[in-house]
């Protein structure tokens, strides 16, 4: 059965169906539509004003590759300039190959590239060292928590080095959906209260961050990379199989099979969560708190809820709510 005609230009044969709408499009029209949607996201959310110097977090993976490519296409229209910032976490056998892919991209697109390494920024702590330090009897890896926090810190540093005004990352809609599921399962009320919007304006002196691909589904990102013949690094991090996010990812896949709009529904839910206001900021930022714990030989220090041990005169640990209730009198009613 011959493929139908492209629904947009009506000349070429359709090469794909868009996952969300089922519309049949040829390759060129699909890529143009994808770029138009990212442009709309950026303009409608006023994410990148003209004259912005944008640091693109480039990992060599499909999302950041597509992001860099699309922004490069849109840069003249938006009036922004781009810098690639790659982070070397020091994961042997994985990050080196990914960085090679980023270098190739930078050369091909003629974009300036800066590489920042954990080892330099964080006093010799590479992710492999962190993984060794946090490996315990836990059933899943805690090092992924470290990697996420430290990577954002490293990205911030790299962005400042190149004099950027904004930081962009390639998170797509599926990532946002997984994050909200994961945060509920982990009970991370702080992150739930913060997340959901199109980006953060940059609190506490940090650079404003945004995610232009936030509304694009993962499938479309992959399709775009396919049609534009982009060269990216597609292997999984060696620590990923043990990360808790894997559970959220499996759940999301199943939900999508039961209801195709599940990803969009989750993003909608995430935007509208109403949580009690966060407690006031602590003395150290999360990255410094984690490093502090690592350096003191107590890696789990800042992962828990309380601030136990962070400052020695801190308040005593709160009693756990899940313990059986103490003998308080039952109020008369």
């Amino acid at each position: 059965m011959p493929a139908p005609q492209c629904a947009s230009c009506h000349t070429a044969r359709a090469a794909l169906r868009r996952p969300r709408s089922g519309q049949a499009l040829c390759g060129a029209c699909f890529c143009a539509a994808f770029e138009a949607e990212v442009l709309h996201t950026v303009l409608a959310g006023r994410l990148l004003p003209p004259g912005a110097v944008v640091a693109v977090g480039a990992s060599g993976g499909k999302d950041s590759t597509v992001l860099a490519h699309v922004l490069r296409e849109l840069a003249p229209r938006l009036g922004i300039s781009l810098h690639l910032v790659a982070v070397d976490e020091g994961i042997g056998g994985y990050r080196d190959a990914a960085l090679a892919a980023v270098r190739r991209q930078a050369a091909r697109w003629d974009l300036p590239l800066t590489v920042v390494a954990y080892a330099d920024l964080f006093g010799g702590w590479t992710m492999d060292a962190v993984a060794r330090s946090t490996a315990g009897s836990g059933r899943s890896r805690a090092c992924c928590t470290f990697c996420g926090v430290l990577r954002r810190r490293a990205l911030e540093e790299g962005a400042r080095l190149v004099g950027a005004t904004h930081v962009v990352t390639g998170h797509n809609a599926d990532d946002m959906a997984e994050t909200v599921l994961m945060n509920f399962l982990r009970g991370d009320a702080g992150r739930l209260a913060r997340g959901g919007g199109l980006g953060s304006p940059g609190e506490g002196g940090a650079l404003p961050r945004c995610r232009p691909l936030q509304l694009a589904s993962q499938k479309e990102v992959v399709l775009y990379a396919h049609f534009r013949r982009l060269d990216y690094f597609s292997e999984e991090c060696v620590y990923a199989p043990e990360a808790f996010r894997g559970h959220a990812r499996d759940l999301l896949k199943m939900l999508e099979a039961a209801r195709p709009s599940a990803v969009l529904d989750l993003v909608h839910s995430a935007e509208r969560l109403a949580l009690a206001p966060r407690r006031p900021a602590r003395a150290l930022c999360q990255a410094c708190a984690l490093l502090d714990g690592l350096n003191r030989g107590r890696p789990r220090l800042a992962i828990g809820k309380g601030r136990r041990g962070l400052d020695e005169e801190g308040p005593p640990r709160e009693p756990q709510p899940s313990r059986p209730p103490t003998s308080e009198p039952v109020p008369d009613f």
Partner: protein
Amino acid sequence: MCEMSEEYRESAPKGSPPPRVLVSLLPMPQNPGQKCVKCKEGLPVVVIRAGDAFCRDCFKALYVHKFRAMLGKNRLIFPGEKVLLAWSGGPSSSSMVWQVLEGLSRDSAKRLRFVPGVIYVDEGATCGQSPEDRAKTLAEVKLVLQTTGFPWHIVALEEVFSLPPSVLRCSAQEPLGTESAYKAAVDSFLQQQHALGADGVERQSQHCAQDPHSPAGPPTTAQTQAMSRLFDSVKTLTAKEELLQTLRTHLILHVARNHGYSKVMTGDSCTRLAIKLMTSLALGRGAFLAWDTGFSDERHGDVVVVRPMREHTLKEVAFYNRLFAVPSVCTPALDTKAPEKASIHRLMETFILRLQAQFPSTVSTVYRTSEKLVKAPRDGCVAGPRCLLCMCTLDVDTADSATAFGAQTSHLPQMQPPVTQAGVAAGPCCCAGMGGGPGCYRGEDPRAQVMEQLCYGCRVNMKDLPEVLPGSFWVSVPTMRFPRATAEQEVQEYLLGDSEDEARTSES
């Protein structure tokens, strides 16, 4: 576990296997001399959570205390108030009814002071049960209801077809009692009790086994067939379950209103609520989580839904029911024997229970996070129109909604700025992706009109229903809800400009 609070696992010995759901009530074999962790004397019979073994009496005390504390802490149920207990026959609601029964008995310490009634909704039509099976179940149900001694009501789900449209009108919300109001109410009640004397108290607390409420008798075949047709026409199990829940809620509230009950108690346990929270999240109901899973749900205005069992895990409920012989009636439900991936509800249930086996604090973590949810409108929005089906303030707006955009782009022709959407594709497309403002549609399509008045989650569910629901009260709703809007809409198409207005009005 990669969890925010790492304190949980510190007490368990390293290398111990993850605790499985215990089905045996015998003491753990490792420690034959183990005593109850609470009273340190009795022989333990149950293990709740890892390593906490309780004897029979301490377990009962803990269970009852949780129930009472939940009610007492929230102080929503005033003395002498009429409360309707929604009983499904399942373990959690049976346990709740039993707790209320015991709490009201004369010899219990600090007895409960409200006036209960029990309602049972017969949902046999939705899962295609034969009339004989339904009659058999009803006989068992009646037996149990008679032993409770409370006034009871058995209603068939088919009665929802004959509900008047006033059901969907959200009544004015009664102001919640303040602390002092509550205390005053308790004091006056106590004074009344003293004044009546011992006899008065006897009379008041005597449970009267009233005749059942049956204005219409058993449902007619036509109604049952209509119900089966309705449920068969729904495309996905997810939408079926949501529809069933909506219909059941409206029916229970209607009965409550008719008989003067101001509160409804449902038996949702901690485990069920954790699953419900995650399911609601996946269904797009993130804005309403606090109402869906909190202790009190006052979105229906005059009747407040209360969930006193929300701290009891299913495991505790099961053990209690077994140890203290709580009667329950097992009936097939909509999702009985459905495969694991059949609906979002099923998926989430399997996922959470499986994760719970691996990380035993999953359910309590989700529960604790749900306690931090607040019932606040987003960014201080004024209370707007309410969803037709679920009665929550509509959470769909045009402005900066990511999903409004996402839904738009999936239905608009490409190569065009996806900004305007008035009068775009007709037919099936107009039912979906309605982030646009009201007034786009001229009122020709009743389905579109209904869609406009639904929240995001209900809209997604509606897509799986092939037609507007049968029954007069659904169709009459659009005209009832926003008569002013349609009149203004109609006028719009006649207005040409300021200069021509006067000419027009003088003519007509």
